[in-house]
Structure formats: structure tokens, C-alpha cells
């Protein structure tokens, strides 16, 4: 197999499956169920995951004129994205049944989005990163508005599109200035030329613009305003996907750019990241306190979690990458899990919205309530859950790097966060005021959805009990991205 094909094997598999699903959609008769297309999409995602795993045996692969670099770092994020997409597809296999005529496009767009996210994590050239970012973003803009005919869904999609495009423009301008200052868009060449550049201010400006663009995509604090509205209107399974997978990809890109591209500017960007992290944690948690809508609350919670994750970035160079990778995985497991439960409870109409609506769930559906409760505990960071070890590694990395105050702010925020997660948890286990209310009667947890819940719950539990497996993978991927790491393996460009 040529190195070019090998390097992009997961992306190629996802693209071909996505195209097949897309073409099959208009060919199938109008009234027919689109579930077979969903199954095809699931098989494609599985194949892409295995392809990423297969790549791990080849060491570092350089391809497409050194714009693509497949290493254990990219494989880690490929596997994570494949797992998130798999769970999302499983949980939404029955979501559109009998409601929308566009389910085929839903599956296709999910696969295309995953292609873009994967491409982002294995690109080491900024324009290629940009292409991946666009593929992923445009797919998620459309997915956000998939409950056609609902005003909130259209609002969500339009807001996401306008603000997302605006953010992408920042990122692109950053790339242009980086090229202007260092003469290259390849991350490794940028890092080499940075020492001898005649325009260090321009390089710093480009870095700031790139951080703004990525900060938007991961909904970090000064750039977070779109998040609650978009998450509230988008379909619940899509929110589960777009609050984790594109963010994981964007965090991976930021790791590559900061740690491999601009390591010599560390003192400057570290203070910037410090401020963004502290602000994200505080704004996210304080905002979540005020929310009554569960999806809005989880949107603010995801802003706070972006803040926790950015704390890891200040731990340069050693512990930061591994703890950030681990946190991304732990956050993905628990957040996708929580949104899978919300998908099952609300259904396509999403008529269970506020915290009060969830009251009494434990009496009617004890298992669903218990699983949601478990994810909430993990989001708080209770021991024996993935969230605990995620926070533990991130804050200990920050402490090792000497950022005591940031760790203190983070721990205080974790305390605040307890309040709103526990409020929802208490609501689940409280008695419903109106006895004859039949809000939960329509809930049917299908087999694929049950499988999705099992996978996410097991992953969250496993990351909380035996984190070593994932942590060692995260450390291997950290070794591939750390500044000055020698890439001496197969260098077969083209």
C-alpha cells in the first residue's frame, strides 16, 4: 500500500461510506426506513477505527508532501473520534424513525464530519488543518438544524453557521500571518524558522488569531457565547457529537500548533491560555447555575470543561499533552453518554426540557435515571469515574508546572459545579408533583441505544477504575508531539 493511501486510510473509508450513504438516500423510496443506511454508517465507522488501529503498527507515516503525519498522537484522536461517532450513530439510529425524510443525509453528514475531524488531527500543515476544520464545521452546521420545521433548530443552525464562519476567518488570517512571518505553513518548519524570523510580533499576532479561532470551536470563555443557543436547538444526539468530537479535534490541533509549532513562544501563549482557562471555568460554571433547560445547562458545563482542559495546556512541556489527551477521552465518554440518555428521554420532539421536567424519572425509568446520574457524577469528578482521573491529571500537571493559582481556581470551580449537577440529580430522584403526568410514557430504549449507553457507561467506569491503558496510550501520543521529539521512523513522502 502506498504511504499516501495508508496515511489517510480511515478518512478514505469514511468518505467512501459517506458517499455511498448519501447516494443511497435519494435512490431509496421515500417512505422507506433509513435504518439500513445507519447500519452501513456504523460499519464504516468501525472499519475506520480498525484502520486507525492498523496504522499504529507503522510508526510515524509522512504523506502528501509532508502535510499529513500519522503518529500515535493522531491515532489516539482518530480512535476517540471513531468511538464518539459510533456511539452517536448507535444512539440516533432510531431517532429519525417516522419523523424526518432526511435521515440518510444525517448519517452521511456525520461520516463526512468525522472525516474532517480526523483529517484535522493528522495534519501537520496549517492549510490542511483548515480544510479538515471546514469539512467538520460545515457538516456540523447542517446537523445542528436537522429538526426541520422547528424554529429553535433553524436558529441554532444559522447562529452556529454565522459565528462559526466568523471564527474560521480568524483562524485563516492567523495562518496567513504565520506564513508571512515564517515563510511556511508547515508546523515543523514554522517552529524552525521562528527563531530567525524578522517579524516576531507578526508571529505572535498570528498565534493569537489562531488561538481565537480554535477557542471559538472549543467554546472557550470569551468566545463561548454561541454555545447555549446552538446546543439548545440542535438535536440531542448531534449535541452529544458536536460537544465532543470536533472539540477533541480542535484541542488536538491546538496541541500540535502550540507544542510543536510555537514551543519557543511558550511564556507568551501560556499566560494567554491561563486567562482563557480561568475565564472558561468560571463563566461556564456560573452560567450553568442559572439555567433551567438541561441542554443549556450542559452547554455551559461544556464551556467549563473546555476550561479544565485548557489548564493542561499551561503545563508545558511534559505532563500537559498526556493529561489533555486523557481529559478529552474522559470528557467525551461522559458527555456523549449524558446526551445519549437525553436523546432517549426527550425523543425527536424533545418535550422533556427543564430540570423540573426530569423530576420523578427514577420512579418511572430507574435504569435510565441511574445511568444519567452516573454520568452527572462523572462530570462532577467523583472518584471511580473517568471525570475524576481527568481532573486529577490536569490539575496535578498544572501544579507540577507551578500554576498553583490556576489549580486553585479549577478546584473552586469544581465545587461550584457540584451544585448544578446535583440539582439535576436530585430532581431525577424526587417525586413528581403531578401524578397523572405521562411525560415519560413514550420512552422506548432500543437495542442500539442500549448498546450506546453500555459503551459510554463502561468507558466512563473503566477510565475511573483502570485509567492506565488509556493513559499509556495518551503518553505515547504525547511523546509524538512533545517539542523536540525525534521522528526518525518511515519518512516516505508521496
Amino acid at each position, binding site marked *: 500500500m502506498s504511504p499516501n493511501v495508508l496515511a489517510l486510510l480511515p478518512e478514505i473509508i469514511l468518505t467512501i461510506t459517506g*458517499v455511498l450513504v*448519501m*447516494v443511497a*438516500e*435519494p435512490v431509496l423510496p421515500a417512505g422507506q426506513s433509513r435504518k439500513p443506511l445507519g447500519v452501513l454508517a456504523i460499519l464504516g465507522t468501525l472499519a475506520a477505527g480498525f484502520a486507525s488501529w492498523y496504522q499504529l503498527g507503522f510508526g510515524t507515516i509522512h504523506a502528501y508532501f509532508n502535510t499529513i503525519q500519522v503518529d500515535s498522537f493522531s491515532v489516539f484522536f482518530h480512535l476517540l473520534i471513531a468511538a464518539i461517532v459510533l456511539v452517536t450513530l448507535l444512539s440516533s439510529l432510531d431517532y429519525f424513525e417516522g419523523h424526518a*425524510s432526511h435521515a440518510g443525509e444525517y448519517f452521511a453528514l456525520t461520516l463526512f464530519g468525522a472525516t474532517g475531524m480526523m483529517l484535522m488531527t493528522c495534519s501537520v500543515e496549517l492549510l490542511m488543518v483548515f480544510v479538515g476544520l471546514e469539512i467538520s464545521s460545515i457538516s456540523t452546521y447542517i446537523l445542528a438544524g436537522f429538526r426541520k420545521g422547528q424554529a429553535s433548530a433553524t436558529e441554532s443552525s444559522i447562529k452556529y453557521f454565522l459565528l462559526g464562519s466568523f471564527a474560521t476567518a480568524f483562524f485563516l488570517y492567523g495562518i496567513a500571518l504565520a506564513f508571512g512571518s515564517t515563510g511556511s505553513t508547515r508546523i515543523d518548519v514554522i517552529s524552525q524558522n521562528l527563531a530567525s524570523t524578522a517579524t516576531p510580533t507578526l508571529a505572535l499576532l498570528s498565534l493569537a488569531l489562531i488561538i481565537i479561532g480554535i477557542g471559538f470551536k472549543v467554546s472557550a470563555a470569551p468566545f463561548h457565547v454561541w454555545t447555549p443557543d446552538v446546543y439548545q436547538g440542535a438535536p440531542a444526539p448531534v449535541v452529544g457529537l458536536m460537544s465532543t468530537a470536533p472539540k477533541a479535534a480542535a484541542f488536538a490541533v491546538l496541541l500540535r500548533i502550540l507544542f510543536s509549532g510555537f514551543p519557543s513562544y511558550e511564556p507568551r501563549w501560556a499566560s494567554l491560555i491561563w486567562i482563557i482557562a480561568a475565564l472558561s471555568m468560571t463563566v461556564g460554571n456560573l452560567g450553568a447555575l442559572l439555567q433551567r433547560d438541561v441542554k443549556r445547562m450542559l452547554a455551559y458545563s461544556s464551556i467549563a470543561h473546555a476550561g479544565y482542559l485548557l489548564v493542561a495546556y499551561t503545563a508545558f512541556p511534559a505532563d500537559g499533552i498526556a493529561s489533555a489527551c486523557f481529559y478529552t477521552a474522559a470528557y467525551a465518554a461522559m458527555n456523549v453518554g449524558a446526551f445519549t440518555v437525553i436523546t432517549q428521554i426527550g425523543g425527536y420532539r424533545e418535550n422533556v426540557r427543564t430540570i423540573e421536567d426530569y423530576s420523578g424519572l427514577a420512579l418511572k425509568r430507574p435504569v435510565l435515571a441511574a445511568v444519567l446520574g452516573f454520568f452527572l457524577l462523572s462530570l462532577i469528578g467523583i472518584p471511580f469515574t473517568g471525570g475524576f482521573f481527568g481532573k486529577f491529571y490536569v490539575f496535578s500537571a498544572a501544579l507540577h508546572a507551578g500554576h498553583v493559582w490556576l489549580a486553585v481556581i479549577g478546584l473552586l470551580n469544581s465545587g461550584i459545579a457540584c451544585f448544578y449537577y446535583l440539582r439535576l440529580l436530585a430532581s431525577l430522584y424526587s417525586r413528581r408533583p403531578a401524578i397523572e403526568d405521562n411525560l415519560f410514557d413514550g420512552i422506548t430504549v432500543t437495542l442500539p441505544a442500549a448498546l450506546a449507553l453500555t459503551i459510554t457507561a463502561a468507558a466512563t467506569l473503566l477510565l475511573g477504575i483502570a485509567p492506565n491503558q488509556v493513559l499509556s496510550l495518551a503518553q505515547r501520543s504525547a511523546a509524538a508531539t512533545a517539542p523536540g521529539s525525534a521522528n526518525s521512523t518511515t519518512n516516505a513522502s*508521496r
Partner: protein
Amino acid sequence: MAMHNYPYIWNYLPLVLQILVALGLACGMVGASFFIGKHKNSRTKAGAYECGMDPVGDARGRFSVRFYMVAMLFILFDVEAVFMLPWAVIFRRLPQITGSKMFGFYEMLVYLGFVAVGLFYVWKKGILDWSAEKGDL
């Protein structure tokens, strides 16, 4: 080309000439039609040109989504042609650049294949079918 025997700014001379020619052509054509042509102004003729639509009216007026569909399709296939042009210009040098005899050719085939799949999808979705009464495209 001899260099540095005239001020740097003279490099912009072709640009200035281009602007002058463009200005002259535009002014000449408009002016010539003003002086030579006949003037029969009607209400419609003097109105603003808005691609065949009534320029004055309710801003919230509705018109078919197909306008946007066709506009998007035009952009897509327009961009496709734009991609092919630079490829065609350096086609003979591609084996030397890529280091493989057919790589550049196959890449374009893959690209055209995707565009063809897109066209097939659009066709099957009925977006090219203007006559059909379809409420939900």
C-alpha cells in the same frame, strides 16, 4: 530583463495603463451610447435592474427556494472548473513534481468522480427538475 536602471515605481506602469484602458473603454461605451443612441425612456426601462424581479415591494416577499439551489449548484460546478484550470496548466510537469507518472492524473479523476457523484445526488433529489411541484426539496 534589465533591472534597477529605472525607479521601482515604474514597475506599476502596466497596471496604470490597464486602469486607463479599462476606464477609457467603459466611459467610451457609455458615452457613445449616450450620444449616438436613441432615448425612449419608459417606466420599466428607467427602473432599477433586479434580475427580472420587481425592485419595489415588500422586503418579506417570498420566492422559490430553487433560486438558491441553482445558485449553489452554479457555484459548485464553477469552482470545479476553477480547480481544473491550474491542473491543466501544469499537467505536463506533474510527473516530475509528484514523482509518479500517473499520480496527478488519478487525483483529478478521483476529484471528478466526487463531483459526478454530487451531480447524481442532485439529480436524484429532483433539484434539477423545475417543473415538478415539490413542497419539500
